[in-house]
Structure formats: C-alpha cells, structure tokens
C-alpha cells in the first residue's frame, strides 16, 4: 500500500482555514469565533489522544485492552442515547436500556464479521476490531437514540388512545403496536437513507480513507458494502431490541401503561 504522509506543517497550513473562519466571524460579528476555536481545539486534542491510544492498542494486540476500549466506546455512546430524549425512563433504565440494546447488537454483528468475513489473526486484532466496532456502534447509536426518543414522546402524545385500547381489554403489545411501528420506522430511516444515497452524494468515509491509502476502488467498495450490511443489521437489531425493552418498561405485568416510569 502506498500513501502520502502528512507533516505537521501540512496540518498547520490546513488549519489556517479554520483561523480564517474565525477572523471572518469577528469581522462580521457573528459571535461564533469562540465556539469555533473551542470545537477545533477539542477535535485536535481528542484525535491526538485517540491516535496515541490506538497506536498503543495496535502495538500490544491484547484482548483485555481491546475490550476495555470497546467498553469505553459503549459507555460514551450510551450517554449520548440517554441525554437525547425529552422524556426518558427514570433511574438507570434511561441509560441502561438503550445502551444494552445497542451494545448487544453492535457487539454480536462485529463478532460475526471478525470471525466470519474478515478473520484477522488473532480474531480480536484491534486494528480491525476497533474501527469496525466503532462504525457499527456509531450508526446503531443514532438509530436506537432516535427510536427511543420517538417511542417515549409518541406514548405521551398518544396516551389517551393507548389507554382507550387498554381499557377496552387490549393487551400491552396490541395497545402499543402503532407507536412501536412509528418508533422502529423512525429508528431505521437514517440507515435506509444512508444505504440509498451511498456513493451518489459523497463517498463514504471509510471507502475514501482506503482509496487515499492506496486500496483499489473495487476492493474499497467491497469493504464499504460489508460495513453497510453490518450497520444495517446491527441498527435493525438494536432498534428492535431497545424499542421492545422500552415498551416493556413503559407497561407492567397487569398490562397497564406506566407513564410514571418516565423521568420528569
């Protein structure tokens, strides 16, 4: 593989454009110069840390360290899911439910890819496992987060209709079916849209990266397809698991709607 190495000077030159944006903001008094600076600095620091950590991970190739890194990714993504909705489940459920659904589906699909299609040696080689898991997890997070957000707000807005069905003797799954469908559909939409326009609007990030690194486009496309299929599978599974679990928690064994289990 051949790729063009970047020096720090190359990066400094490119960063001038961000500075230019900042100056523009000051001249036009847009008031975003500070935010821009903070965001750009965060990005540099975060990526530097990630780069260093990945260098260490790739050099050591240890299962415990790889798992620890994956666990940290799950924790951060779980927090992202928990803070998004207007109304979330109270207590640990708000955090745990989406996180568990997302981690289970993204984890199992990553395992399938590592043991089945890619087969690196060893199977947990972080150079493959971590980026793969990251891409799958990130997309699953978006879907799960949207789906749970949609479910909780739909349950609240359709509460009277749901309770009317329950009062008429419907069980909880029958009463919640319309909102479950809405939530699952909403959770899967970004993934379906992404598949539909992939390559037309912009080249996917991973494929672009591989092409820049010297991989022939045909090979890069194959990798991209593999990733997209994995993302689709993990998102579907994760959305379904977390929506069902959330519906379970929002009702009880007497088939009552329990909006009191949503945090205020």
């Amino acid at each position: 593989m051949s790729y063009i190495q970047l020096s720090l000077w190359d990066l400094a030159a490119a960063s001038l454009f961000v500075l230019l944006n900042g100056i523009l903001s000051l001249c036009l008094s847009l008031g975003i110069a500070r935010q821009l600076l903070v965001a750009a600095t965060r990005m540099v620091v975060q990526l530097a840390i990630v780069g260093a950590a990945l260098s260490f991970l790739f050099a050591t190739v240890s299962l415990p360290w790889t798992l620890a890194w994956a666990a940290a990714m799950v924790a951060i993504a779980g927090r992202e899911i928990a803070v998004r909705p207007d109304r979330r489940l109270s207590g640990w459920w708000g955090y745990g439910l989406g996180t568990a659904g997302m981690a289970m589906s993204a984890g199992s699909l990553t395992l399938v890819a590592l043991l089945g299609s890619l087969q690196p040696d060893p199977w947990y080689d972080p150079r493959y496992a971590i980026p793969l898991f990251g891409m799958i997890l990130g997309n699953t997070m978006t879907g799960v987060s949207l789906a749970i957000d949609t479910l909780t707000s739909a349950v609240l807005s359709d509460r009277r209709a749901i309770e009317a069905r329950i009062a008429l003797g419907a069980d909880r799954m029958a009463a919640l079916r319309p909102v479950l469908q809405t939530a699952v559909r909403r959770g899967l939409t970004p993934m379906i849209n992404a598949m539909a326009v992939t390559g037309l609007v912009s080249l996917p990030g991973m494929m672009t990266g591989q092409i820049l690194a010297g991989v022939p486009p045909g090979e890069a496309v194959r990798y991209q397809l593999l990733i997209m299929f994995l993302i689709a599978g993990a998102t579907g599974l994760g959305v379904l698991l977390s929506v069902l679990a959330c519906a379970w928690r929002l009702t009880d064994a007497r088939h009552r709607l329990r909006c009191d289990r949503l945090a205020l």
Partner: protein
Amino acid sequence: MTLRVAGLRSDLFGPVDLDLAPGEAVALLGPSGSGKTRILRAIADLDPVEGKVSLDGRDRLTRPGPDWRRQVRYLASDAGWWDERVAGHFRDPGRAAGAARSLGLPDDCMGRPVTQLSTGQLQRLALLRAIEDRPRVLLLDEPTAALDDEAIGRVEALLRGLLADGAALLLVTHSLAQADRLADRRLHLRDGRLAGAPADRAPGR
C-alpha cells in the same frame, strides 16, 4: 355477580369500600380534584393501587389485566381514538351504526374521520364503543358532560336498558339531577374518602 371493592387506596385517595350488584347504579359525586376519576381508573386496574377488588368473589389478580378490563369497563371523560375512521374502533360497525342512530348520531357517522366529529358526538360514540362487547360493570366518567338535554335523555335511556339487562353502573357525574334520575345510591367523595350511606337512596330511576 357482585363487584366488591375493599380498602382501595393510593397516595391520592382512599381507603374506599364499595359494593355493586347486578342492575344497580351508583352515582359518585364530589368536587373536581376529589379523586373520582382516580377511583374509577383504580377499579378498572389502570393504575397501580393497594386494596382488593373482586367480581363474583374472584379476586382480579387471579386473571390477567386485559380479561379483567373486558368485564369491568372504564370509560374516560375524554376517551382517545386510535384509528382515523370511526368504524375502525368497532368490532361490528354495522350493528353499532344502528345504536348510533338511536343516540341521535348521523347515519353516516361510522364512515367519517374521527377529526370531523364534535366532542358531543365522539362522547356518545365512545360510550357505544365501551358497551359493544357487553361488559358486566360500567365505570363511566361524566358520560354526558358534552351533551345537550335531548342527547342526555337518549344516553340515559340506553343506560337504563343496560341496567335492566343486569349490568352494574358506577357513574361519575356533576349533575345531581342525573344522579337522581339514574342512580339507586349516591356516594360523595371528599378529599379522597367516600361519604354517603346506603340510606341515602334516591327515589326510583
């Protein structure tokens, strides 16, 4: 058949004790916020509460919640609608259309979108929906609040028919006159507790 409520309580009302026999109508009166709706919902097992509720001596916890609610039917004062069309809420829209006519509703109401009907029309349709499968106990929360006098008369006639067929009725109302017309007994709710002995019997119905 007797609906028996014993020691029903939550942090908002109670304890409440209550018996309801077949064909009996009891009016539940009290100021807004005194917990009338809460009590009806609790009897229908829609909210977690403490206390025993049984039908024919059989505790409600011995059967699944949906089974209980098929026998003991709660109708909210502002019941919700889940289908776009009225007909989508009925098992047998054809038969329901006949009953709708007798309540003064338009002939084509079954085919209409729910959003095109008035509050009063929807209130009558919600009542028809609630009695379609002939539950044995009716817990009605202000079922005529949005209706004019003529429609109220039609609804009360329908309820009298159900009582004659052996249904039991617990009725939340703000109208003393309605309580007099329909109920065998009146119960008054103050601060979540019931007052009103069986001696407080209204004349006839």
